[in-house]
């Protein structure tokens, strides 16, 4: 099975029409500043998508639209059958649990240990008490941070924090992984490791969306690439894998 082609047999037949994430003429304005203008994008289940563009093009903002990190200014967003405009406040956690998010600035809780940062998510999704510990440790192992579980985030190097953020994003076994510059603080080897992890997750059935300006990474991997420019979609195309 090729990983980056959205092969038909990967989708259940009744979901064939409805995409997992649909942005329909979405605008996002911050005061006078327009961060996103008329974005229409569909992302199907189990896709592996890159979002690229210059600094400030709107990559992070686009991701935010899907998990209600910010409200949409105009347009419609539907995620896994939920129309975000009509989502009541108390159902937002439900939406968020569909996602595993690697934030560009990590957003680890500085006053909690690495272990607790991850356990929090594992627990919030309703894992049974006796399984929590095992799950947290296996997650930390998968990003090579098992020996730092008692550290606090400010006591970690930039790359280590990023790896913890990756582990946390995977903690809830989410349907969708949003990765905002997931390898920006990592050296080549560590980046490869994280990237392999994302691909493994994808192979297990998750939808993966990666925002990055690392064109080399995109070229090396290939697949669908959405390039933003000043808040608009410049290109939305599938590029072949380089090697």
């Amino acid at each position, binding site marked *: 099975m090729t990983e980056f082609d959205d092969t038909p047999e990967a989708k259940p037949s009744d979901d064939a029409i409805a995409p997992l994430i649909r942005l329909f003429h979405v605008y996002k304005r911050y005061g006078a500043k327009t961060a996103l203008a008329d974005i229409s994008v569909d992302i199907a289940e189990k896709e592996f998508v890159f979002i690229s563009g210059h600094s400030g093009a709107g990559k992070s903002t686009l991701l935010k639209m899907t998990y209600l990190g910010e409200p949409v200014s105009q347009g419609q967003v539907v995620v896994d059958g939920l129309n975000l405009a009509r989502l009541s406040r108390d159902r937002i*956690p439900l939406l968020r649990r569909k996602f595993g998010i690697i934030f560009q600035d990590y*957003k680890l809780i500085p*006053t*909690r240990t690495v272990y607790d940062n991850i356990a929090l998510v594992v*627990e919030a999704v309703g894992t049974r008490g006796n399984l929590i510990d095992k799950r947290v440790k296996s997650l930390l192992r998968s990003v090579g941070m098992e020996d730092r579980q008692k550290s606090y985030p400010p006591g970690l190097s930039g790359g280590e924090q990023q790896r913890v953020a990756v582990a946390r994003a995977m903690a809830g076994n989410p349907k969708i992984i949003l990765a905002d510059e997931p390898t920006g603080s990592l050296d080549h080897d560590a980046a490869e490791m994280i990237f392999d992890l994302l691909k493994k997750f994808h192979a297990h059935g998750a939808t993966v969306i990666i925002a990055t300006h690392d064109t080399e990474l995109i070229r090396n991997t290939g697949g669908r690439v959405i390039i933003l420019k000043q808040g608009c979609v410049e290109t939305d195309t599938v590029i072949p894998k380089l090697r």
Partner: protein
Amino acid sequence: MIRFLIRAFKEIFSNLFLNAVTVVTIAFSVLIVSAFLLFFVNVEAMVSAWIEDIRIMAYLRQDVSGDDISEIQFKIEAIEGVKAVRFVSREEAMEEFRTQLKHQASLIQHLKENPLPDAFEIQVSPEFQIWDKTETIAIKINALLPIEDVEYGQQWLERFTSIFKLFELAGYALAGLFFMASVFFVSNTIRLALYSRRDEIEIMQLVGASDGFITGPMYFKGMFQGLLGGAVGLSVLFSAFSLISSNIGQMFSEVKVCFLPVNLQIGIVVVSMMTGWLGCYLSLRRFLKS
């Protein structure tokens, strides 16, 4: 449930400095309110006990006979606000008078006939021991035919009760102020302590934790702090009170002070817990919305 408690206790021990500060604030607030209540309640009780000595004297005409006397006593007892009525015969009055006079006793040494009238000594119920109400009672008594005159230390009583009324008024106002201020201090301190954690709350929301999951342990902590602070505040007050009151017992043998009633103590702790909850509620509402 166990996980909830674990998180609640992590919550409590995670930032000991802020939590200690909060508990001390609550303790101080409780101390302020309850110390003032203690002060006020005791002063009030003392003065009330003192005012209770106030009597209305109703002097009878010389020509009133025994049967009439019990009838009048009956009528007086029926007046609203009268607590007890005692008949004081002219002989008793003379005896009392004699002991009252000291240096002037020589004046009545050689008296052959007792010129004093019979009288009733009337005790007024505590709630009528305000000058104007006492006056009303006195006027009513005076209206009874066989009563010649009524005496109730108008001047003194008027002055004293008006001061006391004012004292009570000011006391209630102060207690109200202290209570409001305390609620403000406590809820505000909790709010400020949570303020530094708004990022944490936001992150938890972003990773899909429900509001209850986030705030449950915080409410628990808030109420626990309220409980602890309330208990500490009252304990400190009680210790101080015990220390002082044993000294008072030696110095002022006549003065009897007592601690706050148990009901009030429980009430204070409950209010303190509710304030802990309120402080959480106020700040969490802000952070969760945004």
